[in-house]
C-alpha cells in the first residue's frame, strides 16, 4: 500500500513538473470534440443527442494515448525494469498505475466534457453529480483494462496499434453501458440508467480484481 502511494506520488510529481501528458491530452480532447462535432454538423435541437457519443469517443482516443504515455515514461532509461526489480508487490504497481491513469483521464474529462456541453447545447450543471458518477465508473473500467494491457504492449515493436487492438474488444461492453448511462443521465431519466450503471459497476469490479490478481502472474517471468 505504501509502495503504491509512493509510485502514485512519483508519477504525479513527474507529471506536475513537465505537465506533458495532461496538457497534450486536454488539447487532443478539445480537437477531438471539435472534429466529432464538425463531422456530424447537427441541427441545434438534435445536437444534445450527440453528447454521449462525442464524450466517449474522445475518451477512447485520449485514454489509449494517455495510458500508453504513462508507460513510455517508464521505458526511458529502463525504469520499468527497476520498478519490477524493486521489492514491492506487483499488485501495488498495477493499482498505482491504475490510480494515476484514472486521475489523468479525469483531468482530461474536466476539459472535454464541459466543452462538449458548450458545443452541443447541453446544460450539464444540473446533472453534474450523476454525470460525474458515470464518468468515474466508465473511466475506472477503461483504465483497469488499458493499464493491464499497456504493460504488455509497451515492450512490443507494434505497440501503437496493438494496445487498441487488445483493449477495444474487451471495452465494448463498458462503452455500450457508458453511452447508455450518459444518455439516460442527460435525458433526466435516472431510473433507465440503473441497469447501465449496474453493468459499469460489475465491469469495474471484475476487471480491477482480474487486473490485480492476474498482473503478478503476468509479469512474474
Amino acid at each position, binding site marked *: 500500500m505504501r509502495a503504491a502511494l509512493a509510485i502514485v506520488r512519483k508519477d504525479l510529481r513527474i507529471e506536475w513538473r513537465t505537465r506533458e501528458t495532461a496538457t497534450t491530452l486536454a488539447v487532443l480532447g478539445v480537437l477531438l470534440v471539435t472534429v466529432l462535432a464538425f463531422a456530424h454538423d447537427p441541427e441545434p435541437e438534435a445536437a444534445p443527442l450527440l453528447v454521449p457519443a462525442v464524450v466517449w469517443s474522445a475518451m477512447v482516443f485520449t485514454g489509449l494515448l494517455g495510458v500508453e504515455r504513462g508507460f513510455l515514461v517508464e521505458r526511458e532509461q529502463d525504469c520499468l525494469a527497476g520498478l519490477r526489480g524493486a521489492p514491492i508487490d506487483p499488485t501495488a504497481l498495477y493499482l498505482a498505475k491504475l490510480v494515476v491513469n484514472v486521475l489523468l483521464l479525469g483531468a482530461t474529462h474536466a476539459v472535454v466534457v464541459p466543452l462538449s456541453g458548450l458545443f452541443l447545447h447541453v446544460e450539464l450543471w444540473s446533472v453534474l453529480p450523476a454525470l460525474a458518477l458515470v464518468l468515474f465508473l466508465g473511466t475506472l473500467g477503461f483504465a483497469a*483494462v488499458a493499464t*493491464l*494491457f499497456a*504493460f*504488455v504492449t509497451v515492450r*512490443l*515493436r*507494434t505497440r501503437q496499434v*496493438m494496445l487498441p*487492438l*487488445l483493449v*477495444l*474488444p*474487451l471495452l*465494448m*461492453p*463498458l462503452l*455500450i*453501458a457508458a453511452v*447508455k448511462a450518459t444518455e439516460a443521465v442527460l435525458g433526466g431519466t435516472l431510473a433507465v440508467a440503473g*441497469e*447501465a450503471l*449496474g*453493468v459499469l459497476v*460489475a*465491469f469495474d469490479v*471484475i*476487471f480491477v480484481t*482480474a487486473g490485480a490478481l*492476474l*498482473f503478478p*502472474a*503476468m*509479469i*512474474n*517471468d
Partner: protein
Amino acid sequence: MEAWLGLVGCAALAAAVVVALLVAPAAVGESVAQRILYLHAPSAFAAYGCIAVVAIASAVYLWKRSAAADRLAVAAAEVGVLMCTLVLVTGSIWGRARWGAWWTPDPRLTLTLILWAIYLSYVLLRAFGGDDEEIAPYAAVLGIVGVLAIPAIRVSARLMKGMHPSVLAPREGGSGLTDPSMRLAFWGGTVALLLVAACLVLLRARLERIERQASALRRLADAAEGA
C-alpha cells in the same frame, strides 16, 4: 488420433448436412433459409467450446507454466476464431433472408461479435507479439480476461435494441425442433463440428510444437555458427 477425429467428424458432418437439407421437414413458419441453423448453431457450440479451452489452457499455463497448455491455447484460439467467423457469416446470411438485414444489434450477435474480436486480438498478439516464450504470459491473461468479459457483454448487449429468431426455444416464441430428424440434424451437426474442431485444434497444437522446436534448433545453429 487427429486423423480419426477428422475422418469421423467429416463423415458425421456430411451425414448431418444430408439430414438437414433433405430429410428434416421445414420448421413451422420458416423459409428454406432456416436450414442454415443446422450449421449456424453447431458452429456456435464449437466456437464457445474452443474459447472455453483457450481460457482453461491459459489459466493452466499461468499456474503451471506448462508449454503444452500454452500451445493448446494458441491452437484453440485460432480454431475458435474460425468457428466464430462461421457463426457470424451463417448468421448474417440467415438474418438477411429472415429480416432483410445483414446485421442487427441483437444480444447474441453482439456477444459473438465481441468474443470474435477479443480472440482475434489474441491471435494477432500471438502472431505479431514477438518471441513465443516472452509473449505467452501476456496472451494467457488476455485468454482468461476474454471469458471474464462474457457476463458484462451479455448484460450490456441487452441494453441495445435487437432481435433473434428462437427456433430452438419454444418459450421464446420459437416452434422448437419438433421432428426427430430435425433434432438429429441439429445435434448430429453439433457433434460433427465439435469433432472437426477438436481435430483442427490438435493438429494446430502439434504444428505449434514442431514450429517451436524448429525455431529453437535454428537459434542453436545460429549460436553454433557465431561461436
